[in-house]
């Protein structure tokens, strides 16, 4: 045990005395969570639109005002022909155009029927859909205000309640995702480099001739990074609560425990990568390629997994961050207890055991 502690101390000094790396380790998550937490959002707002108003009467002006005043739209141009609409779209200036026909109000009052055309730039299908829906509901509201006193017969009303995130803020789904991304990058990349570095510098030989068991050597490597990651988890949580305004609804202790578990999973993955890599460059490249993209794609925070083809859905199950993302979402935002997340916890534990097992099995006591 004493030997083990000495090894941990040695590893700790490695990190502590390399101030530049320590600085990056502590500050990178802060920068990332702020940058991505604020900037990565799918919320659609302030979209630029143009209006082609061929009747310019009271009704069309009222609707245009309503639309321009909403926080989703930003009226940038009044166009005067269909050709103009196409040109403005091609310059990338607008996302949607609203066309009012001639005699809009006249038709509305006399024949009780008028038309509005919404033209969306569907090159981004989601934004197009969302914008069309928003515009439609604003127009519906206006129409409702016209026939306020009349109650239509046989009306079905729908009351919609948004659970967990009533303001539909983007940060609620991105914070858990960024948390998984950052922890994965820091833990896995750093441990894998730390071990390979000893190989490259030749100091591994010194360690290998020591009486310490391989298992203990590996654990001693990982312990200091576990502490650094705990500091990272705390900073990320503090930032998300106080800066991004995403509350921790569930139990803080459960969240901390699950994050520690995920950190250990990432660390074991890092150890495994370092075992098979010969140079720091390969280690770094492997951890980036095998972690960054899969975490981004398959954890489910950027792209819905259920939309992917079946083979990719199966692959996504192997990505640890997918399970961690589900856990954080459940505990932090939905406020559920351990009873709801035990299957995911078990999966993460199983992954850790397998990864650690393989690394210990593959850890070579002999040089080359």
């Amino acid at each position: 045990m004493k030997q083990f502690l000495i090894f941990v101390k040695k590893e700790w000094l490695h990190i502590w005395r390399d101030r530049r790396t320590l600085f990056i380790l502590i500050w990178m998550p802060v920068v990332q969570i702020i940058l991505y937490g604020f900037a990565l959002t799918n919320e659609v707002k302030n979209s630029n639109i143009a209006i082609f108003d061929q009747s310019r009467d009271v009704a069309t002006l009222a609707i245009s005002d309503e639309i321009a005043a909403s926080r989703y739209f930003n009226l940038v141009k009044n166009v005067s022909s269909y050709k103009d609409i196409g040109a403005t779209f091609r310059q990338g200036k607008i996302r949607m155009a609203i066309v009012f026909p001639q005699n809009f109000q006249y038709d509305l009052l006399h024949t009780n029927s008028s038309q509005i055309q919404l033209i969306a730039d569907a090159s981004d299908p989601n934004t197009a859909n969302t914008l069309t829906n928003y515009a439609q509901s604003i127009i519906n509201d206006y129409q409702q205000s016209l026939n306020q006193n009349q109650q239509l017969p046989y009306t079905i009303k729908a009351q919609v309640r948004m659970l967990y995130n009533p303001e539909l803020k983007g940060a609620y789904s991105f914070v858990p995702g960024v948390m998984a991304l950052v922890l994965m990058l820091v833990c896995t990349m750093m441990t894998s480099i730390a071990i390979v570095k000893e190989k490259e510098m030749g100091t591994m030989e010194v360690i290998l001739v020591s009486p310490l068991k391989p298992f203990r050597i590996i654990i001693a490597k990982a312990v200091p990074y576990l502490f650094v990651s705990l500091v990272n988890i705390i900073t990320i949580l503090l930032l998300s609560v106080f800066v991004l305004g995403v509350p921790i609804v569930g139990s803080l202790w459960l969240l901390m425990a699950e994050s520690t578990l995920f950190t250990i999973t990432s660390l074991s993955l890092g150890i495994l990568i370092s075992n098979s890599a010969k140079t720091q460059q390969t280690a770094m490249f492997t951890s980036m390629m095998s972690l960054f993209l899969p975490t981004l794609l398959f954890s489910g925070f950027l792209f819905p997994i259920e939309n992917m083809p079946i083979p990719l859905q199966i692959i996504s199950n192997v990505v640890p961050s997918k399970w961690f993302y589900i856990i954080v979402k459940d505990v932090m935002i939905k406020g559920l207890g351990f009873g709801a997340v035990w299957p995911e916890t078990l999966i993460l534990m199983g992954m850790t055991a397998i990864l650690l097992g393989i690394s210990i099995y593959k850890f070579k006591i002999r040089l080359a």
Partner: protein
Amino acid sequence: MRMLKFLLQKELKQIFRDPGIIRILFIMPIVQLLILPLAADYEIKNINLGVVDHDHSEYSRQLVNKIVSSGYFRLKDYSPSFNQGLKAIELDKTDLILEIPTHFERDLVKDNQSTLFIAVDAINGVKAGLGGAYIQQIIQDYNQDVRMQWIQNPKLNPQPTIDVTSSDWYNPNMNYRVFMVPGILVMLVTMIGSSFAANNIVREKEMGTIEQINVSPIKKYQFILGKLIPFWMMALGVLTIGFIVARLVYGIVPLGSYFTIYVFASIYLVAVLGLGLLLSTYAQTQQQSMLVSFFVTMIFNLMSGLYTPIESMPAWAQWVTKFNPVSYFIEVMRMVMLKGSGLADIRVHIFAIIGFAIFFNTWAILNYRKRTG
């Protein structure tokens, strides 16, 4: 000029005699283009629906049928009480609960009015917003059907109605891949441009071969050009491979001309390669240059509008994207490929990217020292 020819010969030989580079160069773009667009499908469909039906009437069944047959919703859960329905949401089994109250049909027919209750899991705001909107639209349609059963439709509408028609230009089938593939191409070209170029020079530093160049009469600009041109050609080659894959696999043919894209890409690559060179003049080891270029490309890619729309970002972040060359190319690529924009439409982007090219390359040349230490 002769000197440059020799340098180019050396660089090309170095690149083509390294099988690893060739493999990465040809296989990486193809694999990424095959996998990424399949995974990056953000279309909102397959919303999992949970139903709590207290009424069990003809109407409630019709309504549920209508919702499920719309194609957006999949009926995943049928619970006897709202609390049990909520459990299904907590377990991620469903995304949305529709609660039909007791006497839904009776109230609708007798009292002329009935209320449905909908609860949406809103952690993913976009999905919740669209899901809520879709289901409300379907309910309204159903409402219209019911009304038609009871009332004879008058010749004119009884009260003012505005008929909203919507058309989706440039991508009428709402195909998400058409949107993602051009962006992914940009990402690939950028990664090859910046990290490969940066690593290449630092490698000469680490191996010590840069010394030989430093003591030769090669001028600074000749050295930089000698490094730039081969990677410039390689990146354009990767872009071409990408276009071929996009055409053969996804059937994506640009609405605008290839010429416009290549004009922009040539200038853009000069800028990106300049950035790579700049990073390499600061780095001493390959590890440093990899870490830094990885960090820079990660921020560039995530803040480029590839995954999330730039307009949705807060004002300061939108301002940051103005300094991100990747965001310009992604916008241009989408404009030309999907909307058929021409050179005149993208002139602002061209000027901006020329600015980047001059800025990065001047800095890189000024910062490149022919002395060691």
